[in-house]
């Protein structure tokens, strides 16, 4: 394990989520929480203490949970439907499609402990298909914040946005990356490191790993651009085309299967608009073995060193294709 660096403070983004949620709850009594016996794992006990009647715990029943969320939205509420991302998106996918996306209800889907945050619990609890599943649906923005600042900004944005969205949060500690005054803009990537030899595109728990990889590459004489691509849908096509044109190679990194997630979304733009060599890092289409999220990310070639090596190999491919 060589990420994250031992001396950097790490934060559980759920804390930023619930702090913002409570602030929004104070401002607007229509903000309600719906959950599935997940008060603890969603960290919404503070919200429950303050507004017990606005914390709607349906029990262990995710399909019902999403349906109830849609009904609450119909009645003028602004439901934040919070559950482990694997159960929210997997179990209730048809409710998300029909009751939320297709019916265009103002439901905020909040997938907690996404990716491989529940590493040792096994593949049932890994949520590494959720980008693909939700991204396949029209009308649901898909957002994976990279740190606590972006998490707070995305939650505030979700409240102000009139329509469904999916926030994909983790519990795995991440360092601060974005400036305190960061404002979330849907579908806009942030260039958090300038570079011209290759572009690293990441989001969520992978952004800080990509940043560390960029620092390693710099020492080896390669300048890597890093795009934090929190919004997976609608994807920032302009930033991708610009990266393809200006750096000639794109490496994507995600805590998700390589089938259908961030890498696929980027590749769709690259193929259609400006083909350049690409490599997609992620879980390579397997049910992951036992291990913590950080262990598994390293195993799957997404340690900063692993990312840097993939970037170097990609740059070589670029030279060959010149």
């Amino acid at each position, binding site marked *: 394990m060589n990420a994250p660096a031992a001396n950097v403070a790490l934060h559980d983004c759920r804390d930023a989520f619930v702090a913002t949620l409570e602030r929004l709850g104070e401002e607007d009594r229509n903000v309600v929480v719906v959950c599935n016996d997940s008060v603890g794992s969603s960290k919404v006990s503070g919200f429950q203490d303050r507004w017990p009647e606005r914390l709607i715990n349906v029990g262990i029943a995710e399909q019902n949970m999403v349906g109830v969320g849609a009904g609450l939205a119909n009645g003028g509420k602004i439901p934040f439907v919070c559950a482990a991302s*694997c159960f929210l998106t997997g179990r209730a996918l048809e409710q998300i499609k029909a009751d939320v996306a297709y019916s265009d209800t103002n439901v905020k889907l909040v997938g907690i402990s996404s990716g491989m945050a529940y590493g040792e619990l096994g593949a049932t609890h890994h949520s590494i298909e959720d980008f693909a599943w939700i991204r396949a649906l029209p009308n649901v923005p898909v957002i994976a914040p990279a740190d606590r600042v972006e998490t707070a900004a995305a939650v505030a944005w979700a409240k102000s946005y009139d329509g469904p969205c999916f926030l994909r949060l983790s519990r795995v500690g991440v360092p601060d990356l974005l400036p305190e005054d960061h404002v979330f803009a849907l579908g806009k990537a942030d260039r958090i490191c300038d570079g011209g030899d290759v572009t690293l595109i990441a989001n969520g728990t992978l952004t800080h790993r990509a940043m560390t990889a960029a620092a390693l590459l710099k020492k080896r004489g390669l300048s890597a651009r890093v795009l934090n691509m929190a919004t997976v849908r609608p994807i920032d096509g302009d930033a991708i085309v610009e990266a393809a044109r200006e750096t000639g190679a794109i490496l994507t990194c995600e805590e998700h299967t390589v089938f259908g997630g961030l890498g696929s979304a980027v590749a769709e733009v690259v193929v259609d608009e400006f083909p350049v060599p690409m490599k997609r890092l992620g879980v390579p289409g397997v049910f992951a*073995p036992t291990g913590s999220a950080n262990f598994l990310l390293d195993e799957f070639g997404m340690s900063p060193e692993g990312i840097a090596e993939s970037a170097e190999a990609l740059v070589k491919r670029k030279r060959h294709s010149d």
Partner: protein
Amino acid sequence: MASNLEQIANWIRRRDLQSVYEAGAGHVGGEMSVIDILTALYFRILSVNPEQPQDPDRDRLVLSKGHTANALYVVLAKRGFIPQDEISTFLKPMSRLNGHPNRTKVPGIETNTGPLGHGLPVAVGMAKAAKLDKAAWRTFVITGDGEMQEGSNWEAIMAAAQFGLDNLTLIIDHNRLQQGARLLDTNNLAPFAPKLEAFGWAVEEIDGHDMDAICAALSSETVVKGKPKCVVAHTNKGQGISFMSDNVAWHHKVPDSVQYEQAMKELEGTAS
């Protein structure tokens, strides 16, 4: 006879607790509540053979409350399906003993569980397969009581009654607690018996920590012809450890060293 089972269950409780303590994770409360049922099944009721875990005529056991996998691993090790040494790899990197049971890796496991509300529908399919073959093997499935809030269970309950699956036994581990609270304060399903009866099942209520009662309720002699059977097992989450028993805090809390010593002492005190 039962006292022998009690001794085995006591050993399994201690090994389970040690494993959770050493791994620093696990679902100790729900494990303590289900261990007597698992022990009765694997050491008295089930016709299974560790030498031939895939024997087509074996009885099937589905642990639908898959978060208590560690208890099943310890039982499977004690019964000879996996080496006892292997229990110490629970949750370790690359171990096949992850937090929820995986049939593709661990012999003796019939279906992968973890998301609640999956085991009963699969068990209905198993029992139906036996009926199609006019085979004698039986299917048992254990669910948590909170787990019964999943709608999929009630779809399966309807199907099992419609199909007349008297070779199927559902055991509800009724410990009155779910993850974050009591069922009573979340989504109360109790009493279970009249609901299952209304759906056409034969129902029996037992003390889920009384070995004689468990064995009697699961014995083939108490099958009701033409009806699936539900055993509502009244249990305690954290059974056998005073400060865990019936305490919602212990769903997946891990004991510190002082608590661990005390819990072990209590369990050793009841070992004969």
